[in-house]
């Protein structure tokens, strides 16, 4: 856990401070220095891309944007998903049925169209990527939370709380929600990579970050195409991406164990 948190913190710091360490701006092209391999000679620590743009600056910029997307999208999905799922699962009956049908409806929506329409209507607003990704991810969260709540609400301690006259809202937020933390955190660590991957898929479809801005996903996407001639273009962002995802995952696990331990006390 310490390791994961440490690595993440280090990456975060690098993403914030790093750009000042490079003499090259992320958008500057240089057609006389394309596809340079990593080195310190020209201060291209991570090499250059097919436009001669410095990959060190671009990778850090991409990391920053990817982190932003992941965190914001996950928060959106967390807030909507947990409240929605917990309410549906706890209240149950007709309300649950209606609420889950609504989730089914949203699940069956053509995501790509949803995004294309959003992008067209709101003119390439970057914030919308966050909203769009968060807006699909909460569905999974809601289903899982609801499933968990459904079996929780039949447990003894909830009955006990209800019998002593605790209100519904209070039961949901004080008794049900804390018991959901384990599964929610595990799932949250799964939505972060999902959010990152969806973002890169959007870039892949041309609906993501606009050039010359970039994200780790689009850097990796660009790197795949150059993987034989300029492997660093794939390796550096891919390793960074994988490391981040791994760390998020391990962190989630460790947190879960921690909450579990506290809960059993």
């Amino acid at each position, binding site marked *: 856990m310490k390791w994961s948190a440490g690595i993440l913190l280090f990456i975060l710091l690098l993403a914030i401070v790093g750009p000042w360490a490079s003499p090259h701006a992320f958008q*500057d092209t240089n*057609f006389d220095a394309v596809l340079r391999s990593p080195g310190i000679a020209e201060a291209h620590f991570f090499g250059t891309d097919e*436009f001669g743009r410095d990959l060190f600056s671009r990778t850090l910029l991409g990391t920053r944007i990817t982190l932003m997307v992941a965190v914001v999208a996950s928060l959106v999905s967390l807030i909507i998903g947990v409240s929605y799922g917990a309410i549906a699962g706890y209240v149950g009956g007709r309300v649950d049925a209606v609420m889950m049908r609504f989730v089914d409806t949203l699940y069956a929506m053509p995501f790509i169209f949803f995004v294309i329409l959003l992008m*067209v209507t709101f003119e390439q607003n970057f914030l919308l990527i966050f909203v769009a990704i968060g807006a699909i991810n909460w569905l999974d969260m809601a289903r899982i939370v609801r499933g968990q709540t459904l079996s929780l609400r039949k447990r003894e301690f909830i009955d006990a709380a209800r019998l002593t006259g605790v209100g519904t809202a209070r039961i949901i937020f004080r008794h049900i929600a804390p018991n959901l933390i384990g599964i929610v955190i595990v799932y949250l660590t799964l939505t972060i990579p999902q959010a990152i991957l969806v973002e890169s898929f959007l870039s892949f*479809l*041309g609906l993501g970050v*606009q*050039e010359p801005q970039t994200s780790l996903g689009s850097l990796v996407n660009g790197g795949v195409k150059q993987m034989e001639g*300029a492997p660093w273009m794939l390796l550096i962002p891919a390793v960074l991406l994988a490391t981040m995802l791994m760390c998020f995952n391990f962190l989630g696990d460790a947190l879960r164990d921690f909450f579990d331990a506290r809960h059993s006390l």
Partner: protein
Amino acid sequence: MKSLRLFLQTAVLIALAACGGPGVTDDRSAVLSRAISTDPETLDIHKARSLQALSVLRDIGEGLVSHNANGEMTPGVAESWEMSDDGLSYTFTLRADARWSTGEPVTAGDFVFAVERLKDPATGAFYAQFLSDVTGLEAVDDRTLLIRLAQPTPYLLSLLTHPATFPLHAGSLAANGDRFARPGNLVSNGAYRLVDWVPGSVITLKRNEHYWNNANTAIDEVRHLVLVQESTQLARYRAGEIDITSTVPSENFAQTRKDFGSELRIAPYQNVYYYGYNLRKPPFKDNQKLRQALSMAIDRDVLVDKVLGRGETPAYSWVPTGINGYVPTVFSYAALTQAERKQIARRLYKEAGYTESNPLEVEIRYNSSDTHRAIAVAVQSMWRDALGFDATLVNEEFQVLLANIRAGEVTQVFRSSWVGDYDDAHTFLSVFQSDSAANVPGYSSNEFDKLMMRASKQVDPDLRRAYLEEAERLLLEDHPVILIYFYGSKHLVSPRVEGWGDNLLDYHYSQHLSLKAAN
């Protein structure tokens, strides 16, 4: 857990079915596998519109006139023809042995039938206007076809190579209606016949035994594989699974060139890549100086050599070099160095009223693709470098871009291109006539229209050419678009394929190819 077990059992069954299924016989030695980058939308000669559909149609059908491997016109269904002195009528004599895949003879009536269907708006043919100069089509007898024209159309023969002007088998249309172009129903008159089509996957063609030139057709079976991604095409080529790619990825192109040497076929292609200005709105409306400045600030040599480097050539004219009987005119500044151009561009930019403190604010719209992205990024940095303003890049989905271009409301600078439909400068220059549907920038010049009109009425090829060249000169002065480059066609062609000819049209009929026997 019973259900889980059931699920897994089903899975194993499906897996076994997949293994044990009949599958495709994998004897590829006598089969030509070539990639196409998208599915043809249909093999109905009149409803087809994509270049991919047209290329498949050239394998299964044949017009009055055809091409050899080098893209030169050769007699097709017609063995000979004669033009009247005024250039207003042509008489074609059809081959006695031209046959449909059913064995029935191809008659002059089949052409009359097809052209009537082409011109009928109810058919919904994308190329319905293709033969708009043809006023009369008459089957004098089964083997004689008379075509009358409203005005001399020196490119008529070239039009008659296009699949939209192929003959149609009236009987199969009557029998199958709208479903006539499906596998099993389609009757065609080319070197191959359609055997199977799995949309999104593969089109299988087999030799048409009744084809008049069957004796000279070498390959028995041709598969057009739909492979959307360039990198997939390359991977499958390298794995030895396809013989011809439809393109080559831009990434890592230098390596591809080194790896494949003479297997890589690059040739000029009659396709011009340009950035259009929206001429209906400021800042580009009535602002020739600004338009010229932006155009001159772009270093096309860098774009072509360093950004693309796949056989493209810088565009200083609208009509590509190599078009039949035409010498393109070029920008007045084509001979200057880039440094000199930059200087003039700066001056014009200032004269148009822009400075460092009052920079131009402009958006470049392009549709999602690595090439378009690369050009946009490079142009943006060239403008920043030469003129000191930062253009905003707007990457849009193709349909959104098209809709925006058509509406002409939000567009400022947009990516577009034009592929010639036939081998004549007219297919390029007519784009900018005021009433042309392809005139997306909204260019309108009386003088240009008049010159084009005069050229159309002219029988004398030299005078006609002079009018067309004058029209192009006028067009270039006005800078309605930023010409960027001419495409190069690029294919990987397996060493076992023989008979391949590079050509400006990028037409490669399977019937001219043959396969070397495996050693």
